[in-house]
């Protein structure tokens, strides 16, 4: 009988440092640079995606900032590194959709931000060629569902399964949505090709 109590079940074993596996210091506190090393390489693509949807520099960066804040708050929920990008785009997608639902929420941006927003963030617009802006405006004529699937598949080069995860829909729905979106966009592009020529 006493021997039974001496057995240490596998789940109670500790690592060399004497910590139970789940309490290891490295698991408790990732450093800022650990997080930055994984998160910051994703920022340009997140900004591109947000800008394509919002078509406003400041609003897009607000979205990305909210996304990153949420990501660092829930860092331990991110899952394997291979899925980090899809996880971030999922957060961004959810934020964009809920911001669309409650449009006025964007105004509540924190005043602590030191970066002058309007002047600094609209400056790069001038580098955006007329053709690019015209193209994005035309792209904006598509429904948000169609815009998202075209961006994730066509621009981000994401796998269909990842797109399904980001948008919270089955893969079959991704395929049919992609099919409709591409056809719609083709018509938009072809229907207005003369305008494109004139701009150039």
């Amino acid at each position, binding site marked *: 009988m006493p021997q039974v109590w001496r057995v240490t079940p596998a789940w109670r074993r500790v690592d060399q440092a004497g910590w139970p596996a*789940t*309490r290891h210091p490295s*698991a*408790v*506190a990732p450093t*800022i640079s650990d*997080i*930055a090393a994984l*998160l*910051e390489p994703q*920022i*340009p*693509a997140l*900004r*591109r995606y947000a*800008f*394509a949807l919002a078509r406003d520099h400041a609003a897009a*960066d607000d979205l*990305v*900032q909210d996304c*990153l*804040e949420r990501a*660092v*708050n*829930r*860092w*331990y*929920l991110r899952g394997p590194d291979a899925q980090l990008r899809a996880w971030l785009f999922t957060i961004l997608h959810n934020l964009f959709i809920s911001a669309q639902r409650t449009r006025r929420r964007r105004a509540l941006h*924190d005043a*602590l*931000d*030191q*970066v002058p927003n309007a002047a*600094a*963030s609209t400056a*790069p617009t001038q*580098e*955006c060629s007329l*053709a*690019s*802006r015209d*193209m*994005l405006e035309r*792209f904006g004529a598509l429904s948000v569902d169609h815009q998202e699937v*075209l*961006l994730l*598949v*066509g*621009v981000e*080069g994401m*796998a*269909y399964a990842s797109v399904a995860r980001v948008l919270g829909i089955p893969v079959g729905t991704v*395929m049919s949505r*992609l*099919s409709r979106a*591409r056809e719609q*966009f*083709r018509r938009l*592009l*072809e229907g207005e090709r003369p305008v494109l020529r004139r701009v150039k």
Partner: protein
Amino acid sequence: MIASIPIGDDDLHAYVDRRLLPGRMAEVEAYLGSHPDQAERLGSYAGQGAILAAALRTKLEEPIPCRLRVAVILARQRQRRAGQAARAAAVLLVAFTSGAAGWLGHAWTGDRSGFQAAAQSAFAAYQTFSVEVRHPVEVRAEDGAHLQQWLSNRLQRPLTPPNLASLGYQLIGGRVLPAASGPAVATPAAQLMYDTGNGGRLTVYAQPLGVDAEEFHYVKQGDVRTVVWAERRMVIAVTGRVPQATLVEAARLVSNGLERRQAIP
């Protein structure tokens, strides 16, 4: 001759995105060779991604603003949380000094014994699960609708996770727990876990109860504080290793959250 699987629209799109297996790729190529109209359509699809990417190239290559740096985001969150704690303390001070009866007026009075068991369970559950790094919850907050429905079904009460974001706490998720022994033990209890993102955890414990008794009870065990009260046929306990002002503010938000849930059926 082996009958081949017919070419589908999905094959054509997967061909555009180069996501077909080599064998299927050859079959689609053969099909497109004999259907130039489809080939032309696919050609325009294939160009769409490149057109969009070109229009967005400036954005991709633009230097990122410093407000998006991870270090800056973490620093701002710390700053904001400090500000919120100060504001919550100020609100509490006003509530006390102005002698406002309000919801605090009926706190700390009445019979405490009935809430001891619930407070103890909430404390035990907090101690057990708030230290978990990998598995703090059973169902994550990402499955929001599922979490809410599951807990509401198990508790047989509508239970919407309250929003504590204004205190800097984000919902991580929740779990079902055995109810503390007491007058109503037929249904289990629930624990919702919130996190600051840097290890600070707060839990909201809810256990069904037959009666309503809206006194607030306050328990301190070591450096862990719990506020318990009964509302909407549930005993609610908010537990955390936090200052009293934060805990009281969290209790207020939870109570208001339950209130709102009732207003919108």
